[in-house]
């Protein structure tokens, strides 16, 4: 359900590669838990219709699951979180 999605801004540890790409490595969730990003499958400009916002969308593999991480055009990171998650 659309209603159950909220926009969660998160702290992110990221790395600039020598080619100038910005690669997120770890997401630090609201409660302080660190989630390591195992792999980035895709990075493209996209809108998040579910959480509301636009920016660079990283398709990340975290704990074996695919998650979208957005680098919004206001230079903040957000994920599409479930309410109560």
């Amino acid at each position: 359900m659309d209603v159950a999605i909220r926009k969660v801004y998160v702290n992110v540890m990221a790395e600039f590669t020598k080619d100038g790409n910005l690669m997120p490595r770890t997401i630090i969730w609201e409660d302080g838990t660190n989630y390591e990003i195992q792999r980035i499958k895709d990075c493209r400009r996209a809108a998040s219709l579910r959480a509301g916002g636009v920016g660079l969308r990283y398709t990340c593999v975290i704990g074996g699951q695919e998650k979208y991480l957005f680098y919004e055009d206001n230079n903040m990171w957000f994920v599409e979180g479930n309410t109560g998650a």
Partner: protein
Amino acid sequence: MGRTILHSDANCFYASVEHLHHPELNGKPVAVGGDPEARHGIVLTADYIAKKRGVKTGMALWQAKQACPEITFLPPRMDLYLRFSNMAHEIYADYTDLQEPFGIDESWLDVTSSATIKGDGYKIAQEISNRMKSELGITVSIGVSFNKIFAKLGSDYKKPDAITTMYQDEFQTKAWNLPASDLLYVGRSTYQKLIRYGIHTIGDLARTDEKILVSMFGKMGSVLWAFANGYDDSPVKIEDTSAPIKSIGNSTTTPRDLLTDLDVKIIIYMLSESVAARLRKNGFRCRVVEISVRDNGLFSFTRQHKITNATNITEEIAKEAYRIFKENYNWEKPIRSVGVRGADLVNDNYWEQLDLFSRPELREKQMKMDGTVDILRKRFGYFIIQRGLMYQDTLLSHLDAEANGRVHPHGYFG
């Protein structure tokens, strides 16, 4: 070979951007409009759900509420819309360097040369439309044609999220059946006049003798006739060659009606500060000062006056504006809205003849003072330094006018 021109028009632009940022309002009517508390109460953009209920752009907020009680009003966030507009232009730039914005949410694109690489106009339009949806989360209507006028007609033909072609072999069946008022530059009064002569559709207009139209509208008649027949060959201007600014102005609807000369003086000085600061920022000086006044019976007028020395000094612009106001208003009614504008702009290093009696050293001091105020405000915020006048009524003067610059479409003829 003919040209391939696209006209891309973002559907309910402000409302769409707001919808994207408020997923919880999905499927609910939304209008973007000024702050109802501060009385800037009109609808700037309504989404399609609200439009269906009869909410129109320009309506007062209370009228919109009457037409559609469950409507949600959102205050406009201009910087956000400009960011989206820029992102849209970045997408267009992948297809052509010939793009001409028409207002914040519309653009003409000349994709003639990219058609060989990217496919024909329709295919490019599809690609742009899809990218808008996936990358920006908004929808556009695109018209594909061989000139700018019909491309624009095409983008208006079907909304939202549609692509309409208006090729050489189609415009007689598609465009000519549309009412003449759909044509760019046929406004309400022109349309009324056309109707009186039995000209209802664009086709009627195209089939009318050019000479008759010229006798009705002067040279505009011949322009309209050419538009209707698809003879418009105006080029799409190259990116970033936006027309030089012709004037810089600012106006505001005040938080309460203005009742005295002092009230007006406060507002005029406040607006002049913003106008002069923007002139300085862009390296201009003005040679004409113009004011506009609207009373609470919505009667409005503008007056302008040429000044002797080109200026961007706040004090000079404000004094002149206030003088024009005093000369032209007799306080029949309270005033609702005031504007100040500097026109006939010249470059900052414009030279002029000094006369024996003016005091250039005083002007120089004033310029230095204005420059200092600009720096202070840039570093510490607008309200760090104020004229004493502003403390006569802080409710009126507490508007940072410069940050409120509005964006309007330029005229088609530049």
